[in-house]
């Protein structure tokens, strides 16, 4: 069974990239104070000093100022300063410390690299109480970058996506190999969803008709909807290794 809010122990998704830094905490669900402690224990001296200074600057100069706010510069360079394993968490902390609102998050998302956009998506549940940042989630779901698709389906997407968009996002995960373990609140949103069950069953039928295996995750989420299992051939090889 999936525990989307407590993914400890699941330290890698199907992208082969850690879904979260180190021990499986994810920047979208871990409280910022815990993220900071987590990073402080893992960053080397230079990276930790850089992050401390970046957060001090964001504390002193939050919000939007000048042609480009200093925390936006730090957001851009966090990857090379903290390393790829810790960049997401460092960027979420910078956004949180700068009190980036929906408008600022929208700006840095659209001006950001794929890595920065992913960090913005992770930061949404910490910073935006209402649905006003939903267009960013929808933008990420239109991409074919699986790391963005996975980040779009964090707690913020789970809270605000309407049923139709959420169902299509789940189906896209199955198509593109995003592990459904990464989908926040999967159990609650899938439960009793007869339309999702129909879409999943149709997809399984299409796969079977083509002589292809059905992703194991499909059976799992179909069970969550409360519908009967499809007539599939059971768990298959890791997604995409079929032939």
């Amino acid at each position, binding site marked *: 069974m999936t525990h989307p809010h407590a993914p400890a122990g699941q330290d890698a998704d199907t*992208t*082969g990239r850690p879904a979260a830094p180190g021990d499986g905490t994810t920047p979208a669900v871990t409280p910022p104070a815990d993220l900071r402690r987590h990073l402080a224990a893992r960053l080397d001296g230079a990276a930790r000093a850089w992050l401390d200074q970046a957060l001090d600057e964001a504390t002193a100069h939050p919000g939007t100022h000048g042609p*480009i706010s200093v925390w936006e*510069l730090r957001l*851009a360079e966090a990857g090379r300063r903290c390393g790829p394993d810790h960049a997401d968490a460092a960027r979420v902390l910078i956004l949180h410390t700068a009190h980036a609102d929906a408008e600022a998050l929208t700006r840095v998302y659209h001006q950001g*690299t794929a890595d920065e956009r992913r960090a913005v998506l992770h930061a949404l549940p910490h910073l935006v109480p209402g649905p006003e940042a939903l267009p960013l989630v929808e933008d990420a779901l239109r991409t*074919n970058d699986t790391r963005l698709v996975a980040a779009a389906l964090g707690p913020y997407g789970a809270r605000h996506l309407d049923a139709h968009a959420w169902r299509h996002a789940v189906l896209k995960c199955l*198509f593109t190999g995003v592990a459904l373990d990464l989908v926040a609140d999967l159990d609650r949103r899938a439960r009793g969803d007869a339309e999702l069950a129909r879409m999943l069953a149709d997809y399984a039928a299409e796969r079977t008709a083509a002589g292809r295996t059905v992703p194991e995750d499909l059976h799992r989420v179909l069970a969550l909807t409360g519908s009967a299992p499809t007539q599939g051939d059971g768990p298959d090889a890791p997604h*995409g*290794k079929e032939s």
Partner: protein
Amino acid sequence: MRIFDPHIHMTSRTTDDYEAMYAAGVRAVVEPSFWLGQPRTSPASFFDYFDSLLGWEPFRAAQYGIAHHCTLALNPKEAGDPRCTPVLDALPRYLVKDNVVAVGEIGYDSMTPAEDTALAAQLQMAADHGLPALVHTPHRDKLAGLRRTLDVVRESALPVERVLIDHLNETTVKEAKDSGAWLGFSVYPDTKMDEERMVAILRAYGPEQVLVNSAADWGRSDPLKTRKVADLMLAEGFTEDDVDRVLWRNPVAFYGLSGRLSLDVTATEATHEGNSILRGQPRDEPAPDTADATGA
């Protein structure tokens, strides 16, 4: 054999090319921003292109075990189009990004005053951002173009040791080498350099600060030219160490001047069947081994 192609326009290439490049030993590429064959008419077209070089293209490359970085600039061919010059104002925002390892391609196309302005402004931006610069030499009137390029570089705030002069050939290599710049050679099926001439230049001038690239793009070009040069070097008596120096260590050293080169590729291994780049290609083989690329 590990190969770093320091100049290739992967946006114009297919996933078949990525597969063939990986099989040939390519583990890292740098994609300079350039023109697309079709002139652009607004800065927004450049911004979408830059975003692609910072997002989608590294994602594609990673799925084939290849590290992808980029260089960003307003290119010489479009620097003279007033519809495009506002790109210069927005470049600083892009030059701070993690995957940007140089300003480029800049340089001359027709050697106009507008090109002078763009070249000088972007050399200054490279100096301001701690980045080296990839400077293209013109196809027409090449030696005069090289001399004028070197003059502008010497007048700029960017030390010539942080400049890679590209598309060199027999007529321009000596003056470029004497300047202290890094030396780039593009090996093409018909134009620019070919493998035999490249090996002759390496024999005459040595492998120091020499980078060999395929410059493959949407025109007639070959993304495996780097490997073909390496094979001919070995056949002609160069050592494995010489090959590694020219095809790997030199580009790592040059782009490493940025402090932003990260050669650890995490193959994303994401599988796609209906709507992404793997498009239902059954793949039995494990994700590419990236060990070669992580050692340097």
